[in-house]
């Protein structure tokens, strides 16, 4: 049974702080996704768990062992790299079998286990080929096969899908999720793609600037983002955010006003997801604007309007009649508004929602 714990982990390069005081507990069998933009420290965090980077301070435990000073090979984990990391001069069978070979597993048993792993990732026909003769998706499956062949305690996956094309990514995503649940192996998965995070994770840890912004189940984070950064990072299209000034009981910006919640600070950022906003006839919403673009997505339509310099997205029914250049009314849904401190960006919960006058 393998849980993983990061305790006040810090990584610095000179004065640059890559990972700042990250603490994280990952339960046995859990699929944890580290999500964040590039440079947020998510890959560095994973590489420290793998043993490919040294910690500046803090402690990492896998199971009940402190692994800080263990070599990667001694940590009993497997890793899938973004660029596959296959050995080009070895056949697929040799690639998958390499961890076993290093471990000194006898040839007979090695071949049996390589075969079993290859079956799992549907590569049995390609065992004698070399990596360059395989497609991107097949190569990544080889990497997966190499990861599962020695049944490690922990899987680490560093953006394993980002080199694949969109269609393949969806099917590989499903395969990874299925495989992880089937093997019930604790997994840490790094990605900058919020869709991957939402679909794969038991829990998501959203990172920015070397720090964890929020940890929770995907839906919890989606519904109650801890700050404006998380709010804008999760969801596609991302949440609409408006910076408002508060005076005389009203939230104001140059384009529109809403009633302020009680005890609001003087600067407040409000946010609403595109699916919670409504495009209505001019004059019937909270303010009017002009349609910047109207895009049919298939199941819905996406209407974009311009407020000041910002673009605001609204999901509308697919048969919406709005065309580019039309006047349109924009209506907020009071119950699903998110509030963030205008200065710190931290989420604020108000007793009562903000209702327009």
């Amino acid at each position: 049974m393998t849980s993983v714990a990061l305790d006040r982990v810090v990584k610095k390069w000179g004065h640059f702080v890559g990972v700042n005081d990250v603490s994280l507990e990952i339960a046995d069998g859990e699929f944890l996704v580290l999500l964040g933009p590039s440079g947020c420290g998510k890959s560095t965090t994973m590489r420290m768990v793998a043993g490919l980077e040294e910690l500046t301070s803090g402690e990492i435990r896998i199971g009940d062992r402190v692994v800080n000073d263990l070599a990667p090979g001694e940590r009993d984990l497997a890793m899938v790299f973004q660029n596959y990391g296959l050995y080009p001069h070895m056949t697929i069978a040799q690639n998958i079998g390499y961890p076993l070979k290093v471990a000194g597993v006898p040839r007979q048993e090695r071949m049996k286990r390589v075969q079993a792993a290859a079956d799992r990732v549907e590569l049995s026909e390609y065992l004698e080929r070399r990596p360059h003769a395989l497609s991107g998706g097949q190569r990544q499956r080889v990497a997966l096969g190499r990861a599962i062949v020695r049944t490690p305690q922990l899987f680490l996956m560093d953006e394993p899908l980002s080199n694949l094309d969109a269609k393949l990514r969806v099917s590989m995503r499903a395969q990874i999720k299925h495989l992880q649940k089937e093997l019930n192996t604790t997994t840490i998965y790094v990605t900058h793609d919020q869709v991957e995070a939402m679909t794969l994770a038991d829990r998501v840890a959203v990172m920015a600037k070397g720090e964890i912004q929020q940890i929770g189940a995907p839906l919890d984070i989606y519904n109650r983002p801890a700050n404006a950064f998380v709010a804008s990072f999760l969801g596609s299209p991302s949440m609409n955010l408006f910076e408002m000034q508060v005076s005389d009981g009203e939230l104001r910006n140059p384009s529109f006003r809403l009633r302020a919640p009680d005890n609001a600070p003087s600067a407040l950022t409000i946010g609403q997801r595109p699916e919670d906003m409504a495009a209505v006839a001019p004059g019937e919403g909270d303010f009017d604007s002009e349609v910047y673009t109207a895009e049919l997505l298939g199941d819905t339509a996406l209407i974009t309007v311009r407020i000041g310099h910002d673009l605001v997205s609204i999901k509308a029914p697919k048969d919406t009649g709005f065309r580019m250049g039309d006047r349109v009314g924009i209506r907020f849904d009071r119950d699903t508004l998110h509030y963030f401190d205008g200065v710190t960006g931290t989420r604020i919960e108000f007793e009562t929602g903000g209702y327009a006058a």
Partner: protein
Amino acid sequence: MTRHAKRLRIAGLSVLQIVVAALVLLPFFWMLSVSFKPATEAFAIPAELWPRNPTLENYVLALRPEFRRYFLNSMIVSGATLAITIPLGLLAAYSLSRFQYRILSVFLAMVVLAQFFPAGAMIIPIYKIVRSAGLLDTYASLIIAYITVTLPVAIWMMRGFLMRVPRTLEEAAAIDGASPLRAFVDIVIPLARPGIVATSVFVLIVTWQEFLFALSFTSSKEMRTLPVGMNDYIGQYGVRYGELMASSVMISVPVIAVFFFLQRQFVAGLTAGAVKG
């Protein structure tokens, strides 16, 4: 450009290539031709490209016991230089390709700078060192001198090849449980093989044909290498061109053979498919 002009251009370039190739190959052809000519024909005027009465006489004469001795000496000196340069250079190059040293740029600059000194400028100091070490007229004198020349270049060359082996592969090997040395042997060396082979060929060619050091450091016939030994044919009263050319051919054969067998190894692209490029 019109199709006509394009064709004209290609034709022009082809002619140019043939001219260049002829200029480069003519001396080799002449060497071969003279080596099969009887002594009377070597200086015939007008000179003829093909031997009129081809003969193996020159080869028979050239294959004296001394020649075999020189050949052996050359093999020993080149082989030993190679056997020391490559492992030493490979480890140094790996270290320089993987670890950040503050003095790295200084070191690399020195390696390059060392190439600018002509052998003639170094021969006297090296001679003095060799003499005071009591190594004159030994294999060791030549091997040590050659290593000073080949090692810096070998490090430089192999570092270039090692830099192109993706680090991800070593990380993958580390995750798979391999020690750094094991990863180096299992992963890095096989992938850098074209570079190691190319460097080996370079070392062999440099040492095989080296003349100045070999002439200066060896005095007895037993220690002479091939290039020095060939000097025998250039006597005070004349040059025995037939035998000189025949032994030139025989000296060239190993080099050509090495190239022939190893050219497949030079083919790059072995790392294709390792990581997304």
